[in-house]
């Protein structure tokens, strides 16, 4: 009869079954189960259990070219899988440092790969949520004294459990202004990159030469990044295949002769200034679509079939300014 009606908090350790009493939706033993693993023994089992294999296949299928980047990502994924196997057998597997830097010219797919990276890492269970927080200098660096630290911290906290993608990371450091607040952001970043290694993965991206200068002036940053991936420029063949993919996604296709014309266009466009690889291809295709639209618009009384509406004709591409410039160039050189 002496059983109390209520338990006095903190008086005695609750019996194990009371501890198990579920608080709303939170299974208390979830982390324990995750830590012990469920005993996968082979690479195939790990890949089957996670969606990482799928992510890798997608990467292979959807992204044209980029052979060195793909092989590096496969290496990283392999390490993560093997680490998982080691963990299941009770071998020491300390969380690898996964911070990365992506360097390469504009339009070489840095952001796209970062997005995929988040999915792959989540599939393998090395980040918990696998969301991507993409930021630039503006989101990290404040405008007055004392503004930077809270701003950077908030971004970092938001990215916890996912991937923090810092685009144009070299802007963080401005050597010409020694009172620039960027340095403060870098210091906080470094500290969190080191102490919260298993909570978030930081990916820095930017153009090769400027990123090199950035790392030279911040050696601490460089040494905390385990993987430096260099994104090469696409050769013309890859750009053409990218164009095919883009058109296919938008339900367009090249008409007769148009693909050859586009190849010629690319050959002339690449040496010109401000060429941004895949991004330039997309812009060129967008302009071709504009021309196609106005060509069809002129035919006010014609009934269009789906085929007419989805075909980019050779003339749509030949009308580009790039051909004129090239022709003018040839003319002046010929004379």
């Amino acid at each position, binding site marked *: 009869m002496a059983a109390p009606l*209520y*338990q*006095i*908090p*903190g*008086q005695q350790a*609750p019996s194990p079954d009371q501890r198990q009493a579920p*608080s*709303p*939706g*939170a*299974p*208390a033993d*979830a*982390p324990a189960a995750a830590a012990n693993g469920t005993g996968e023994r082979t690479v195939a089992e790990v890949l089957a259990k996670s969606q990482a294999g799928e992510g890798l296949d997608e990467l292979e299928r959807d992204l044209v070219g980029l052979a060195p980047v793909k092989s590096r990502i496969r290496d990283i994924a392999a390490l993560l899988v093997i680490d998982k196997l080691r963990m299941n057998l009770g071998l020491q597997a300390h969380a690898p440092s996964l911070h990365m830097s992506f360097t390469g010219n504009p339009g070489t797919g840095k952001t796209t790969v970062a997005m995929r990276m988040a999915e792959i890492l989540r599939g393998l269970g090395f980040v*918990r*949520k696998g*969301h991507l927080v993409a930021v630039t200098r503006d989101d990290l660096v404040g405008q007055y004294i004392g503004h930077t630290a*809270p701003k950077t*911290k908030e971004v*970092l*906290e*938001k*990215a*916890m*459990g*996912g991937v923090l993608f810092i685009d144009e990371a070299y802007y963080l450091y401005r050597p010409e202004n020694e009172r620039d607040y960027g340095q403060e952001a870098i210091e906080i970043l470094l500290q969190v990159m080191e102490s*919260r290694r298993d*909570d*978030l993965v930081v990916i820095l991206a930017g153009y090769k030469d400027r990123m090199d200068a950035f790392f030279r002036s911040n050696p601490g940053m460089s040494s905390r990044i385990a993987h430096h991936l260099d994104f090469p420029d696409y050769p013309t063949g890859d750009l053409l295949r990218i164009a095919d993919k883009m058109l296919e996604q938008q339900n367009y296709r090249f008409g007769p002769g148009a693909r050859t014309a586009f190849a010629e266009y690319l050959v002339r466009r690449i040496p010109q200034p401000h060429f941004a690889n895949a991004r330039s291809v997309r812009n060129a295709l967008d302009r071709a679509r504009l021309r196609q639209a106005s060509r069809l618009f002129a035919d006010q009384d014609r009934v269009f079939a789906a085929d007419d509406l989805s075909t980019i004709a050779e003339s749509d591409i030949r009308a580009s300014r790039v051909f004129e410039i090239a022709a003018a160039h040839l003319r002046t050189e010929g004379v």
Partner: protein
Amino acid sequence: MMTNPVGRITQGQFSYLPDLSDAEISLQIEYGLSKGHAWSVEYTDDPHPRNTYWEMFGLPMFDFEDAAGIMMELQNCRKAFPRHYIRLMAFDSTRGVESIVMSFIVNRPKDEPGFGLTRQEAHGRTIRYTVHSYATDRP
């Protein structure tokens, strides 16, 4: 009548349970996040039941995906106010709800002085009662 023999503040969820460990707190946060709630950290030195609005420690944390970020903010608050009451609150922004849906204390002072009953003699022989929290006597 309910009595509270150990003099612990019982406000919000889980307040009759032993203090939640950090792992349990992050599981609760995770649950709130999975429902799309935005967490915020608040602290106060006055646990009076009518003291509804505690001091905000930073802004409510919208767009967070993972409990680690909120735990980091909580640790900062604990470091800044080790002897205060700290609570976590989850805000549900669903149209029509738009209010706090979870709230629990995650930090309390080592000894909680509790409350006293103050009597005031009013006109006639009327007595007026006020609950006074001892915690506010020694700021």
